[in-house]
């Protein structure tokens, strides 16, 4: 019975995302941006022995912004206006509500990340082929692509966890983008301990270059961050009045 209930909650949360124009536009816009960037980067990289995969990997730092927004919107849109009251009166068990919301967000992120990765790679391959610079992809390339999907999902989940904690769109956006675009690059120049930051650890899954973290341990560190931030937010959400 509980399974039916959580199933209903996940389906309702997916419905919310599907019918929220900001969410669908973000997902489609991110995929389209990935395609256009991959094509442009492929044209720029045609003389440096690029493959469709290396081009796609170069586009990741840009398209990740879409995943930040896609991770934040499912929680933040509850608090623009008074929808949270309707949500809580429909699903008064807050733990079940959060579990459903996180699952629906994760599903949306994985799907969008997979489509973005595949579409960007296809766009890069087509561009390279049309320029006569196409190189066959190897098994390694496929692993890198899977890593890209995983990284973009992780970035979305970190953003979702931040949104569960701070609830509102602007504070969540500022904190996650501040981390990814400012704090993380800044600290990386100052200390090697910056590798433990959630986005740096997550990046190991598609671009393993660290001397200490591997793709596997990077994934675990990123997941630990997500659980820590989401659990703090969830405790607050479950205990306090809305």
């Amino acid at each position, binding site marked *: 019975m509980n399974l039916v*209930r959580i199933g209903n909650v996940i389906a309702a949360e997916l419905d919310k995302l599907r019918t929220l124009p900001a969410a669908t536009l973000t997902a489609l816009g991110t995929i389209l941006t990935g395609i256009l960037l991959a094509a442009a980067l492929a044209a720029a990289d045609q003389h440096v022995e690029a493959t469709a995969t290396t081009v796609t990997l170069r586009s990741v730092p840009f398209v990740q912004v879409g995943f930040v927004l896609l991770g934040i919107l499912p929680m933040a849109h509850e608090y623009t206006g*008074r929808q949270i009251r*309707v949500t*809580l*009166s*429909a699903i008064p068990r807050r733990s079940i509500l959060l579990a459903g919301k996180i699952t629906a967000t994760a599903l949306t992120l994985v799907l969008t990340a997979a489509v973005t990765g595949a579409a960007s790679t296809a766009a890069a391959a087509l561009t390279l082929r049309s320029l006569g610079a196409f190189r066959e992809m190897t098994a390694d390339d496929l692993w890198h692509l899977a890593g890209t999907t995983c990284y973009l999902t992780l970035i979305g989940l970190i953003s979702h966890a931040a949104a569960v904690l701070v609830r509102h769109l602007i504070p969540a956006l500022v904190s996650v983008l501040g981390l990814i675009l400012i704090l993380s690059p800044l600290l990386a120049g100052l200390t090697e301990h910056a590798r433990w930051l959630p986005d740096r650890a997550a990046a190991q899954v598609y671009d393993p270059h660290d001397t200490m973290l591997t793709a596997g341990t990077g994934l675990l560190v990123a997941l630990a961050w997500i659980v820590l931030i989401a659990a703090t937010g969830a405790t607050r959400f479950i205990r306090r*009045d809305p």
Partner: protein
Amino acid sequence: MIQIDGLSKRHGSRTVLSDVSFHALPGRVTGFLGPNGAGKSSTLRILLGLDRPTAGSALIGGRPYPSLRTPLRTVGSMLDGSGAHRSRTARGHLGWVARSNGIPKHRVGYVLEQVGLAGAARTRVGRFSLGMGQRLGLAAALLGEPEALVLDEPVNGLDPEGIRWIRTLLRGHTDAGGTVLLSSHLMSEVAAIADDLVVISGGQVVAAGPVAHVTAGYATLEDAFFGLTGGPGAGEER
């Protein structure tokens, strides 16, 4: 039946509700009346599991709201408008609400028809008038064919035709054995709809009973309201 027993709520040192008790009975419309800030919304929020009481209990059919498995099939509620996100369509809003409680999809079209919004089903909620928003909130409340309706200021923003419509709708609900609890800060509105009144002032219930009983001894409904709630002109007419 809705049972509120000994409900108290404090925010820090401020007492919002103090030992509030009353029942809303099946087959009757109970009007929950009081000036702004008297504690109406606080009581309803606790009843719907949105806030926790400091003491006391609020039960629907003998159970606290958060323990209801699919609450919308037992209680339909509307607090402060529809609560729908501005960028969603009316159909999109009702669609997810229905899904969350396993309510069949055909109910969405049915309730939109019932509240007179069938023509605006694909309109974004941000473009709705205040009255249309109230109708959408009512549609969501009716979605699960609940036994009880809990409505906070439902006539707010409705025109006279809309008020007559809601009166007929609520009467139909109670005639079928349902329970209706609605709050208002306007005595004349609520007296025209309700069978029973519960008057709250300063976080305490100051009168409760059938409308005629509560308003007895006052020249007008307005005098009764001010007399009971201690507002301007209190005690002049009794």
